[in-house]
């Protein structure tokens, strides 16, 4: 079995994040970029299937040159190889543009199963797996909390608000996962050393035969009308307790819809 895991480098959601000079896209130039958290669960799921079935695991990343840092880190967890699509013209792509590039890159790879995180911590639109399934005409089994490989197919438990649904697919499929699915392993010193020697193929849009005009800012099907930086933290509300402090607290929490 060949598994491709989609991995995105994102600004660390635990650190201070900012908007880029254009005023609406995320600043990706900073030093605190990390593997999108949910993608680590997708990698772990692929490695679990690798341990079980001997599958080949390839990472696929679309992102700027420095995304290679996250690729090396992800490789140190245990995948076999990686493909990195890096092209200035991809910058500013919306989800559809990114999906087109990923679909083209998948065209250069053998795969039976694609795994991805259910969302990214930067865009957070949760549509990429669905778009990709449409473009590739394969099954989309999204929001998985459990994946089982059966004879000639897949069995997926899909997390819902109040339980789960059971999905089955035969043939190629994309499965996106939530963080309830497993506990990602840590890399190891051995893995770090081995990652240095694993092949990372770098591709441009030209290599993929993708017309640059159909992706990036200019090719985007959606437009960001406005974006505002998060307002600075205010002074907050002080409750002075003159015997009615509890009532004031409840009133505040109710007004803010916390209770």
């Amino acid at each position, binding site marked *: 079995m060949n598994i491709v895991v989609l991995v995105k480098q994102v600004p660390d959601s635990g650190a201070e994040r900012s908007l880029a000079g254009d005023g609406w896209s995320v600043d990706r130039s900073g030093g605190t970029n990390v593997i999108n958290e949910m993608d680590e669960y997708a990698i772990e799921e692929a490695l679990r299937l690798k341990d079980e079935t001997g599958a080949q695991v390839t990472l696929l990343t679309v992102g700027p040159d420095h995304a290679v840092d996250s690729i*090396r*880190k992800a490789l*140190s967890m245990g995948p076999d190889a990686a493909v990195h699509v890096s092209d200035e013209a991809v910058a500013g792509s919306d989800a559809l543009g990114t999906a087109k590039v990923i679909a083209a890159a998948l065209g250069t790879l053998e795969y039976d199963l694609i795994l991805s995180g259910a969302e990214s911590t930067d865009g957070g639109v949760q549509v990429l797996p669905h778009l990709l399934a449409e473009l590739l005409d394969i099954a989309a089994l999204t929001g998985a909390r459990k994946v089982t490989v059966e004879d000639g197919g897949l069995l997926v438990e899909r997390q819902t608000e109040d339980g789960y649904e059971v999905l089955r697919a035969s043939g190629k499929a994309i499965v996106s996962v939530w963080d309830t699915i497993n506990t990602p392993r*840590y*890399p*190891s*010193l*051995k893995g*770090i*050393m081995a*990652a*240095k020697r694993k092949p990372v193929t770098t591709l441009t849009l030209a290599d993929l035969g993708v017309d640059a005009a159909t992706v990036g800012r200019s090719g985007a099907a959606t437009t960001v009308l406005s974006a505002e930086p998060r307002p600075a933290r205010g002074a907050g509300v002080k409750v002075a307790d003159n015997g009615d402090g509890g009532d004031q607290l409840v009133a505040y929490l109710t007004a803010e819809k916390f209770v």
Partner: protein
Amino acid sequence: MTTDRLLPTDEAAAILDLAADIADRELAPRAEAAEENGEFPREALRTLGRAGLLGLPYPEEHGGGGQPYEVYLQVLETLAQRWLTVAEAVSVHTLACYPLAEYGAPEQRERWLPDMLGGELLGGYCLTEPAGGSDAAALTTKAVRDGGDFVISGTKAWITHAGVADFYQVFARTGGPGAAGISCVLAEAATPGINPQKPERKMGLNASPTAIIAFDDARVPTERLIGDEGTGFRIAMSALDAGRLGIAACAVGLAQAACDYATAYAKDREQFGTRIIDFQGVGFMLADMATQITAARQIVLHAARLKDAGRPYSVIAAQAKLFATDMAMKVTTDAVQVLGGYGYVRDHPVERYMREAKVLQIVEGTNQIQRMVIARAMGK
């Protein structure tokens, strides 16, 4: 503040990242409660071991990480920033592996070292005795040959990992008085007659067990003698040269944690309508803390780089240990001061840091002994 580091390789950066990642997720969240309850984090050490972080400075051919000391020490610093007990545990384990790694015969190394460095086992280092601390050459624990065994009897004191270690590096008297009568023996913790006592009730570092170990005629095969008979004291001192750098790195990490905490607090706390960091009296205190930490880190790394280059480093290691641990005591004390009354209670970690810093001035040669080492070299 994040520390800007000049690292020798890309993989060194990846190793530090990994250490920070594990420390953030597995160590930091547990430290406070475990210190309160005196629970040794054995499982967290296994996690570090599986990641390959319990044998970093030893050769790859024996299951080590093949990393320069410079990288190993910065990993220790990273761990100490989250939890001193764990960093200290890694340092003591590394110390306990040193005699075999450096002085063991090739077949001894092949036989025992891979397991010791593999991450599942933990070591202890048995040098100090109730009556002999600084004057380690006066130790009285005996190892007497009897057939194929040494029969070890005596009392070791202040042993870190007593009762939780899997093996002990034991220094015992096989010959006459003085340094020349001491030998080094690698004993399995499960050996009958090795009897760890109740852990001491310490001022800090309460998650790390420290106890007396009674050796009641414990029989250890003579094939477990490390180095020649009578060279044990030299081995012990050489191990401590390297070990001291570990303690110094722990001190840097601990002080950094205290400084970071105090800085964040001083930016948030207001008095007289002003952030307290903007009062010169507080801001300058923090500036001195940060500067002293940077200076200590550089001595530690300089000593490590000399060691890595195969140059003598015993005196600079003593200077690093002396400076870094005195610095950590001062910085953690000042961190309490920055928090005022809030610094004196257990709701904030700085009072714990202050209690923990104290031990670093005592272990692996008190700071008086470090000064003695330095002054003696100067007087030659």
